[in-house]
């Protein structure tokens, strides 16, 4: 009797795992099946031509470049803030001090705030500062979104770091600042993993850039010009009644999915490398 129950539940559990695996394959399969026929070299290398949204010539280079600009801009901002912060929590503040707990709790909340709230806040902030929907608006808002992601994953690897190396450095007479310069090198693979994760989230999120970055058919040449983004380009093309345009939405979806796949696998590669090198 108890063996029967054992068997039944094992089968149910394996079933659940297979369903989840199946859904992943189903999603990627659907996107590829629909998108591959429409995926051409032009999609990646050309800007939208005249009548693009009626099914004529062109590609989504504007959105690809716009997304890259926004993600790397926001990455730069959030790196400047998150790396020092994580170092501060881990090496300057005493272990489990009140301040570090308060910071970690705020980071937790920032991490869980929905991207649409960042989008709305970002837009309100831009109105307040008198900035129109533009590259810089998108960069600031996406930076808010990916900063907590970056901090949390960096904090996780930093916490795992053995305390021996910092102690050895300090006992050799290094200042804390010099110690951190050495430790950063030690943390590099973890930092890269965190960066890749953050890029993945930043490049795929639509709700943050919906009001803040605007949309354009050109590549922005200054920070104050609007910028197109890949998720929004998928969203807008999908909303078109023209079939060719819809197919292009699927092709753009493949491009985005491929970017995410590449980021995810490189993140995995770096984090496995990290666990091997750990002292």
């Amino acid at each position, binding site marked *: 009797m108890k063996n029967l129950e054992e068997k039944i539940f094992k089968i149910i559990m394996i079933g659940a795992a297979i*369903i989840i695996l199946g859904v992943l394959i189903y999603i990627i399969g659907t996107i590829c099946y629909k998108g591959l026929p429409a995926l051409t070299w032009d999609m990646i290398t050309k800007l939208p031509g005249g009548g693009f949204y009626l099914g004529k010539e062109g590609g989504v280079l504007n959105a690809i470049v716009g997304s890259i600009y926004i993600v790397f801009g926001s990455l730069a901002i959030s790196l400047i803030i998150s790396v020092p912060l994580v170092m501060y929590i881990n090496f300057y503040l005493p272990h489990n001090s009140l301040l570090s707990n308060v910071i970690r709790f705020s980071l937790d909340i920032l991490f869980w705030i929905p991207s649409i709230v960042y989008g709305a806040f970002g837009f309100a902030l831009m109105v307040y500062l008198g900035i129109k929907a533009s590259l810089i608006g998108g960069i600031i808002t996406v930076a808010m979104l990916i900063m907590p992601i970056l901090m949390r994953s960096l904090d996780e690897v930093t916490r795992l770091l053995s305390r021996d190396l910092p102690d050895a450095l300090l006992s050799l007479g290094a200042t804390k600042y*010099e110690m951190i310069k050495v430790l950063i090198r030690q943390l590099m693979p973890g930092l890269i993993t965190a960066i890749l994760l953050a890029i993945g989230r930043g490049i795929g999120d639509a*709700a943050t850039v919906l009001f803040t970055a605007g949309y354009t058919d050109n590549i922005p040449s200054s920070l104050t010009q609007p910028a197109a983004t890949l998720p929004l380009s998928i969203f807008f093309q999908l909303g078109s009644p023209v079939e060719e345009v819809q197919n292009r939405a699927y092709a753009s979806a493949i491009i985005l999915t491929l970017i*995410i796949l590449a980021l995810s696998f490189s993140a995995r590669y770096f984090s496995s490398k990290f666990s091997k090198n750990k002292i």
Partner: protein
Amino acid sequence: MHRIRAIKDKTARHFMLGIAIFTILFLIVIGLSLFFKALPIIKEKNLWELLTSANWKPSKGDFGFLPYIISTIYVSLIAILIALPLSILTSIYLNSYASKNIRRFFEPVVDLLSGIPPVIYGVWGTLTIVPLISNKIAPNFVEFSTGYTVLAGGIVLAVMIIPLLISIMVEVFRSIPREMTDASLSMGATKWQTVKKVILRKSFPGMIAATVLALSRAFGETMAVLMVCGNITQIPHSFFDACYPLPALIANNYGEMLSIPNYESALMLAALLLFTIVVLFNGLSRFTLNQIERRFQFS
């Protein structure tokens, strides 16, 4: 030489402290600015009335959030009901049954599911789930459904929160001391009995915390849900009615509403609601998780 090193060290320390304070302030600033932006409408109408009225006519000054709140709750509940059993079963399997190779194979699966952008989930939903509901499922229950429904939103959202639930639950299961499960197994209990009587019971608070976090993510999910749930302002009466969750309301109307009085303030109230839910739910789950950590620390 010494002095320069000391100055560098001191500057770095102050810079870092500044950033630390900035981060905490940033959270407070978001909350406060949402609150002050929402204040005009809260002052004009009473908050309770705003939350419980179903009358939404911005041009006439009627802002009743009830349809949006109910839609959000329905969609999220369906998502949790679908995702929770699947995630619990899979996490137990990965934690107690699966071989190391299967576990290693499953990690990137969960990673990828959590990495896929919302908009891709939305495209997948409109391509597969929506027609499935419209052609296969709905005809068994109602006369006609476009497929852009509460159910479609719930299913897509379920897939999106599964990786989140699994990764938290695997952590929670892992935090159970090995001695406990070993003791149970050595008394002759089968694996499933150990899971049922030891692991599930011990990790119950952790599972609640995971569920609460997943719910707060579900409430705020925008793009994917917006693409499959129909976006019609009404209180949905069945799974096969279209609905209009709060994040979709903000996404569809924000930026275009500046000419109608109080409209912006109303949408900011929607954002404030989401923000408040996230803060509350996070505090709750953090409290529970801390309790767990404390309980297992010395055992």
